[in-house]
């Protein structure tokens, strides 16, 4: 659906400074219906890549290709995308409703339909009580919720979200993650960046990981976890009224188990040891 082909981008902050490579030959793809997490530390190049995807910033080399299903012209492509920038600042003197009317009208949504969508999404995102209040009176989390509504009010095919969970309280994060999963189940492709690995692990099937502007990994989370798992099992059992724990290798699995069964111990847990995504990412970075 979206293909990044060898994207490179450099920045030069001052005339005398050396060029800084923000992205170095990054290539990967996002397929239809996927929920892709985009991981990387602060300054890894996530936001730069998203800006290139949205054509706000132009790469030094490489290109972003969109599938025909997203449209033929740049405006058609943009009509099929919903985008939420990192820490979106909204027009502070407009009310929440006016802001959504503004962005909704640009998407060509009819007046009555737009009002109905505003009401339903404001209720869903729990900002209905403040929808006619000016945005400068909104908290950071409320602004994030309003920005999120604006990014999906036109029912896009693809959602591009830059750190959508930052600035939200734990309940807000949970709500957002549930909505992302729900939208993905409805067929919307989602690409969202985060530097919080557990959020990505919780809801995504696929992960793209960049470090210092370079692509480190692209693929399924399960595959990554499996690839980085040790062939070790943890067995917990009760013997002589004491809980014992054994760590064994794959090759010793059957022998150890039959031995324990012969001793008639009470085995209550057998688990393959699996590191979480955060540990794997940390290991890859090292």
């Amino acid at each position: 659906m979206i293909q990044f082909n060898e994207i490179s981008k450099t920045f030069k902050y001052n005339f005398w400074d050396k060029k800084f490579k923000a992205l170095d030959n990054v290539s990967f793809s996002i397929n239809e219906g996927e929920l892709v997490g985009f991981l990387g530390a602060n300054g890894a190049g996530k936001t730069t890549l998203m800006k290139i995807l949205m054509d706000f910033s132009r790469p030094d080399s490489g290109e972003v290709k969109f599938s025909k299903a997203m449209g033929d012209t740049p405006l058609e492509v943009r009509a099929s995308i919903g985008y939420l920038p990192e820490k979106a600042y909204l027009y502070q003197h407009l009310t929440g409703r006016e802001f959504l009317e503004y962005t909704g009208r640009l998407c060509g949504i009819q007046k009555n339909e737009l009002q109905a969508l505003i009401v339903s999404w404001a209720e869903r995102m729990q900002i209905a009580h403040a929808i006619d209040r000016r945005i400068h009176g909104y908290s950071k989390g409320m602004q994030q919720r309003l920005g999120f509504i604006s990014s999906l009010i036109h029912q896009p095919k693809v959602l591009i979200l830059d750190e959508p969970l930052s600035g939200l309280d734990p309940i807000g994060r949970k709500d957002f993650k549930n909505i992302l999963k729900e939208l993905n189940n409805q067929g919307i492709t989602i690409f969202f960046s985060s530097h919080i690995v557990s959020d990505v692990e919780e809801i995504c099937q696929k992960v793209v990981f960049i470090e210092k502007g370079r692509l480190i990994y692209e693929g399924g989370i399960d595959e990554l976890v499996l690839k980085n798992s040790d062939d070790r099992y943890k067995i917990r059992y009760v013997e002589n009224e004491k809980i014992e724990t054994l760590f064994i290798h794959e090759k010793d699995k059957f022998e150890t188990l039959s031995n324990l069964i012969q001793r008639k111990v009470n085995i209550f847990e057998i688990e393959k040891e699996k590191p979480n995504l955060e540990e794997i990412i940390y290991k890859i970075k090292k």
Partner: protein
Amino acid sequence: MKNILTVAHYTFIEVYRSKIMMSILFLGLGLILVTYIASEFAYGAPAKIALDFGLGIMTLSNLGMAIFIGSTLISKEVEQRTLYMILSKPISRISFLIGKITGFSSVLLINTIVLTMLSVGVFLLVGGTFQTLILWASLFSFIESFLVLLVAILFSLITSTAMSVIYSLVIIVVGHSLNETSRLVFAKMNPFFDTVVKIGHVLLPNLYKLNLKDFVLYQQVISIDYLANALVYFLIYAAALLIFVIQLFKNKNLD
């Protein structure tokens, strides 16, 4: 076209509700009051003083808004990331820019209309006689502020907000003094300086042409050819400037 009007509509609301707009309007109203007081002290010609003050204040407040809001109209959107929310929708950069300019120009137009009505009101109150030329002076003041708005946006796209304000002020001063400078004997005698002034005439807006206050206050007549020529000159100049600003914005990296 629909998108341009949508952007213009919400830009108007945003600027209209901002404190800058309110403070400039209060400043304008305060200065109108000063005008009335000044005219009370002008023995013999209170109407002329009232009109001179009124038109001058209107021009200053229009130019103040054009420079200070124009310099931040687009750059603030980039800094605060608000434009990402808009440009991610199916709207071209050109429509967005023209919408922003249209929205803010409508604020300038309303400011011009309100302050013209107040100036004329004070002028009539102290015994002045209405003349159509006052309306031309107001129209030209609006055109001048529109041009300065484009200049401020142009500089804000290639430099910082502070420098954009300074460069716009320089353009206003040079634009108003080009005519007088070219008449200096020194300019006529020095071929290099003469060439510089001629280049300045081509590249910079000749804002002197838009200043009708002398005609309104003293001569009270002006040929329609002068008005038509000035109007055509500034329409062409504004169109060229707008095309240049559009090209800059279209190709700008919004990092």
